[in-house]
């Protein structure tokens, strides 16, 4: 094994879209690792770097050459290779020729497994220099990267994410002169674009270890983690300096770290009169248009008239960066304020009519149609939940207003503000708080990490809206399968199940399916029975996943689900109780017995009616008494206690009683007893699935 040297490859490109940086570096890391393993080269300590114009990989060690490989080749028996005079035979010479050695190099030994001495040669395959191997392989590895939106440039047919303008490739201090699309690697690269306006010479990187420092001196921080950390630090310092704190946004922080090569955070101001805009509008406008953070007061209530954004340079010597961003932001906020004022000139409700021209889904009609269905669903469910008249009226009002903001200018500009704007506009119109809150929150939860609506009406409206979306789509044959879920029905379905789960409402998926399919009715293109079945299967998957999200152990989930999944409140109570008992040793025994009962009842299904007086042995009489106790218990938690108490009597029963005895009457009685026990178990869980 020859000495290892650090290895460095950097592709210097025109600005690469931020979203491709991480995947591309990760993909080539994997390809490089696999290639090295295939070449018997030990690649150690591989790390990646990226910035808008750079993709780079550095290994702490890569051998300078493959190790030599020694192989022993065995040929024909000695007697066939050498004649009586001790001269090589033709066969002997051919063997030497085959392995490229003089006959003198052939030895005669008796290898293990052979009965006589044979011709043997030792071949040394000399390992090839790594530089040569890299030169052959790297262009193919880079060209083989999967680039989702590849491009061509200039006269070439070469495709990559953006044009490659220079390549830095070193093994130790030696250049690996690979060539890609006519660009040949050297030991130089380019620093920050603006740095080179004054400094036309490229940056020399003498060895891989010098990479970060050489580039930092030329205005580029090549590590995204370092950039992110420096940005976070500056954000906090600058926000504190104006007496506030940053409105956290991890995604935006990542974005800023990916779009600059040198992170300088600039704090700008906007005219305070824009603070009359809703906080969400300001935060969204600043984020979407200017990739800027907002600053809020330390108590988290209002915003300060300041923003923080990243510049791609080391400083802002003339204040132009601050002034420029302020100028642009003012134009954007001017727009937002214009929308906010225009939208409020008319009551939100006047948009209702305009919803007719906004298609929700081809077969399901417009958002006006959808609103009609959501109102009907809300009415049906509110009745089932026994809402009083006042709440019912507010729920229906919220359902009527929920989608109107889709026709406002503000939501046209910022689709992510749907719901929020409707709520805000209703609040300004003086709607009841429950109504505007429900509208404002009815898109929540937006994902697994998002909270549910805070208010009960918000949850109800969210549930009804999602139910219409899911049920409606299923009724016209749009059903998610595999990776295909273009309308994100799984996310809607999961949100719906989470609301039921956390609110503990007495509504089952079967009820919901019945309600929604009844209301979608005439629009349906599939038979209702088929749709119901598909919907229930879909909801069962969502409920199963909900149990996982809630953090229950696998054995709890499996056995609880098998005993019924449709009554979510009951399922939750059973899961809670089971989780509490999971460590009880009696449960393991109970599970054993349950499996045994399952096996015994596999072939014969008794009717469950039996006369206890027919039982003869003490163990079975005791079991019958316990069964009575069990059947009389209604409370779930207590039920589990009684079940656990059954472990010992069951063990005793199976130890002493022969169930399938000769006497047909006794045998039937015993089987019925076990059947009744199993039915009682299944009220809680299918213990045969407990492991």
């Amino acid at each position: 094994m020859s000495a290892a040297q650090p290895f460095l490859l950097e592709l210097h490109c025109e600005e690469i879209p931020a979203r491709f940086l991480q995947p591309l570096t990760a993909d080539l890391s994997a390809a490089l690792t696999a290639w090295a393993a295939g070449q018997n080269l030990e690649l150690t300590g591989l790390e990646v770097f990226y910035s808008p114009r750079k993709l780079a990989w550095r290994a702490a060690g890569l051998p300078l050459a493959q190790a030599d490989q020694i192989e022993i080749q065995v040929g024909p028996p000695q007697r066939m290779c050498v004649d009586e005079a001790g001269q090589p035979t033709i066969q002997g010479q051919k063997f030497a020729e085959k392995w490229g050695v003089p006959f003198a190099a052939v030895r005669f030994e008796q290898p293990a497994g052979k009965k006589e001495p044979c011709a043997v040669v030792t071949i040394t395959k000399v390992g090839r220099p790594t530089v040569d191997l890299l030169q052959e392989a790297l262009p193919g590895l880079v060209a083989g990267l999967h680039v989702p939106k590849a491009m061509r440039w200039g006269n070439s047919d070469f495709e990559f994410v953006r044009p490659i303008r220079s390549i830095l490739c070193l093994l130790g201090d030696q250049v690996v002169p690979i060539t890609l699309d006519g660009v040949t690697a050297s030991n130089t690269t380019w620093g920050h674009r603006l740095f080179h306006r004054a400094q036309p010479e490229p940056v020399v990187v003498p060895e891989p270890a010098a990479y970060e420092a050489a580039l930092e001196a030329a205005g580029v921080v090549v590590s995204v983690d370092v950039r992110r950390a420096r940005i976070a630090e500056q954000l906090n310092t600058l926000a504190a300096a104006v007496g506030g704190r940053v409105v956290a946004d991890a995604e935006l922080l990542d974005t800023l770290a990916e779009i600059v090569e040198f992170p300088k955070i600039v704090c700008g101001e906007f005219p305070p009169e824009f603070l009359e805009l809703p906080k969400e509008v300001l935060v969204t406008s600043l984020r979407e248009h200017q990739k800027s953070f907002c600053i809020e007061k330390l108590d988290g209530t209002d915003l300060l008239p300041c923003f923080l954004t990243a510049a791609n340079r080391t400083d802002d010597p003339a204040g132009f960066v601050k002034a420029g961003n302020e100028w642009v932001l003012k134009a954007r906020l001017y727009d937002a304020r214009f929308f906010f004022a225009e939208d409020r000139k008319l009551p939100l409700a006047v948009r209702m009519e305009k919803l007719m021209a906004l298609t929700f889904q081809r077969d399901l009609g417009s958002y006006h149609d959808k609103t009609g269905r959501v109102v009907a669903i809300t009415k049906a469910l509110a009745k089932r939940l026994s809402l009083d008249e006042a709440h019912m009226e507010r729920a229906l009002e919220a359902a009527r207003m929920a989608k109107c903001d889709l026709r406002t200018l503000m939501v046209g500009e910022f689709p992510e503000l749907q719901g929020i704007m409707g709520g805000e506009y209703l609040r300004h119109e003086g709607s009841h708080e429950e109504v505007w809150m429900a509208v404002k929150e009815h898109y929540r939860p937006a994902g697994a990490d998002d909270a549910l609506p805070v208010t009960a009406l918000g949850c109800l409206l969210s549930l009804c809206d999602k139910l219409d979306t899911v049920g409606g789509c299923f009724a016209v044959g749009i059903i998610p399968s595999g990776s295909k879920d273009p309308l994100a029905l799984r996310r809607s379905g999961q949100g719906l199940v989470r609301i039921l789960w956390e609110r503990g409402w007495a509504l089952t998926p079967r009820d919901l399916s019945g309600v929604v399919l009844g209301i979608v009715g005439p629009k349906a293109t599939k038979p209702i029975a088929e749709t119901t079945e598909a919907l229930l299967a879909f909801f069962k998957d969502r409920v199963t996943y909900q149990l996982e999200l809630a953090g229950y152990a696998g054995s709890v989930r499996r056995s609880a689900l098998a005993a019924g999944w449709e009554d979510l409140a009951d399922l939750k109570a059973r899961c809670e109780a089971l989780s509490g008992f999971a460590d009880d040793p009696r449960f393991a025994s109970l599970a054993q017995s349950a499996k045994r009962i399952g096996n015994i009842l596999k072939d014969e299904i008794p009717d469950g009616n039996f006369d206890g007086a027919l039982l003869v042995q003490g163990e079975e009489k005791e079991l019958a008494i316990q069964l009575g106790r069990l059947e009389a218990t209604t409370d779930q938690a207590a039920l589990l206690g009684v079940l656990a108490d059954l472990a010992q009597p069951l063990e005793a029963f199976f130890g002493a009683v022969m169930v399938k005895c000769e006497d047909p009457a006794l045998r039937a009685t015993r089987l019925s007893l076990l059947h009744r026990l199993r039915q009682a178990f299944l009220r809680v869980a299918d213990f045969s699935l407990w492991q």
Partner: protein
Amino acid sequence: MHIQELILRLQRFWADRGCLIGQPYDIEKGAGTMNPLTFFGALGAKPWNVAYVEPSRRPADGRYGENPFRVYKHLQFQVILKPSPAKVQDLYIESLEALGIDFSKHDLRFEEDNWESPSLGAWGVGWQVVLDGMEISQFTYFQQVGGQDCRPVSAELTYGIERICMFLGGYDNIFDLVHGEVKTDDGVFPVTYGEMRQREEFELSAYSFEHADLDLHRNLFASFEKEGWRLLTDHGHFLSAYEQALKMSHTFNVLDARGAVSTTERPAVIKRVRDLASGCAKAYLEHQEGSAATIAAAGKGGAL
């Protein structure tokens, strides 16, 4: 900087770097890309560098001359470089320096922004160029035009002239920009963008949002389409047919501004424009191939 000074400097800059200076094409259009100097120039193998100003009409962006940032019609400065030079980004930065932007004091970023024109059957990848937080240009490597692969690839640079002027001068209202100065025996009279254009903005906005006759436009759209296909299929005339495609595109934009095209019918209507434009692109390439020998023999160049 006055608008006309900005245009003159850009023209000088690109002429000095080997670009033809072209002229706007006299048919309404939504973007400078639609000028035949770009649409046909980006097709085929011949080297082709051209720069020109193009007035671009976006009926839906009309604000009656009341919004200080948004207008129905704005000016684009368009540069096409085929094949895209290796130092195209540096060239672009030098052009900004020619406008007096000193990069020792400004922030410049190239942010992903891929361009697509469904009605031209064209797409490319590239960036929006952001100066101190402000988008000042679009930068695109054309991959396809008129449904045809671009080989070689052209780089397209589009400067938003009014925006850059506003930004450089710190203007808060587009109509306060100064187009240039009129000098007479009686003195010097600066002429603002507002004086030249505000009334036009008002009338054109009113036209596209209120007064345009929708039935007329629907009929025009169909008539231009029919005329275009007749020219293309009966006569093999791709230039006059392409003019019909441009007229279809603008007619569509007027209808669209009025909300007269529903979201469901929209893709199909756009496809009708694209089909004609793509037919023109294909006919152009076939014509180029057919006449390549003749042109080579005659020693004449030029993309058209």
